[in-house]
């Protein structure tokens, strides 16, 4: 499985899908995050592999 982590939330998705499709499955807009895997920034077309842990960095700030 692939693990997606956004702040304190964790999601699991099936491997083999593109990041953009994984984000859609867990209802996260790609516009609101930057994704990193093993410390590297990745784009939304990246295919996720079994065992991947993808950290989603929230981009929205302000008040």
């Amino acid at each position, binding site marked *: 499985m692939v693990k997606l982590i956004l702040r304190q939330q964790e999601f699991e998705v099936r491997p083999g899908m593109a990041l953009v499709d994984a984000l859609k499955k867990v209802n996260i807009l790609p*516009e609101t995050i930057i994704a990193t895997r093993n410390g590297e920034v990745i784009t*939304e077309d990246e295919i996720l592999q079994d065992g991947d842990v993808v950290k989603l960095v929230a981009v929205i*700030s302000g008040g």
Partner: protein
Amino acid sequence: MKCKKCGQKAAVNMPQHHLGLCREHFLEWVPEQTERFIKKYAMFTHQERVLVAVSGGKDSLSLWDILCRLGYQADGLYIALGIDGGVRYSAESQRLAEKFAAERGLTLHVVDVQAETGKTIPQWAETTLRGQQKPCAVCGMVKRHEMNRIARDLGYEVLATGHNLDDEAAVLFGNTLHWALDYLRRQGPVLRETSGLARKVKPLCRFYEREMTAYALLRGIEYIYEECPYAVGASSIRYKELLNQLEHDQPGAKLTFYLQFLEARQQGLFGAEAQPEAALHPCPRCGQPTSAPGLCSYCRMVTRAEDGE
């Protein structure tokens, strides 16, 4: 996705520009674009001293980093607000701003609101009408006052803030919903100096917030990731979420919204551009310009507290 410049694997995709770039070329592209915006909007020159308002967040630290890489004379100003919120928000953001400056040998001025005024921002918010609903209004007012005071006292020609396009589009969205003409006339990449007010510039105003996050991460800039505890539920965040939904369905929508607004404003859609000088009066206590004769709102707040009201 491949980098448009070198064909290597892209790190950042920017659909609104039909552009994907690798780490190396993205980190070149951001300063190049910033320089282009600084010149396009006549923000400042290499001969002028720039004071960068740094919060410890991704945008302001990235802005400081970019201006230094471009060779500008840029010093930092950190305003300690005294916000804890259970996450030591101000203490941690100050630590990160100081660490950033120390690692690069940069000058950071620090102003402590409690030391200056006797109270932290949350304490001021509890005791003033302006802050009773949320401290954000008091916080904004105090920050504007202190930023301008330091810029003026220390002889900086320009005050630069890290507002990005999402910040600007959210403000524009709010001002448009309310048809706040005075604010619409004033909103832009540059607010020209007047007597007693430093020039204010926003060199990152055409970068998406997502790009600035990518820049901070790719440059290895350590920034405060926690949100200000008082920002929860802020309307600006709600507007950003709405605009991101629109952006998702229509890439480029945020950029078009902002740029077309600037164009419309320049063409006089909102009437003549505001002439701030004409309507300002010097505050008799601090000397900073204010819109109505008498004390400015900052001095009214402080003197009321001094008088025990």
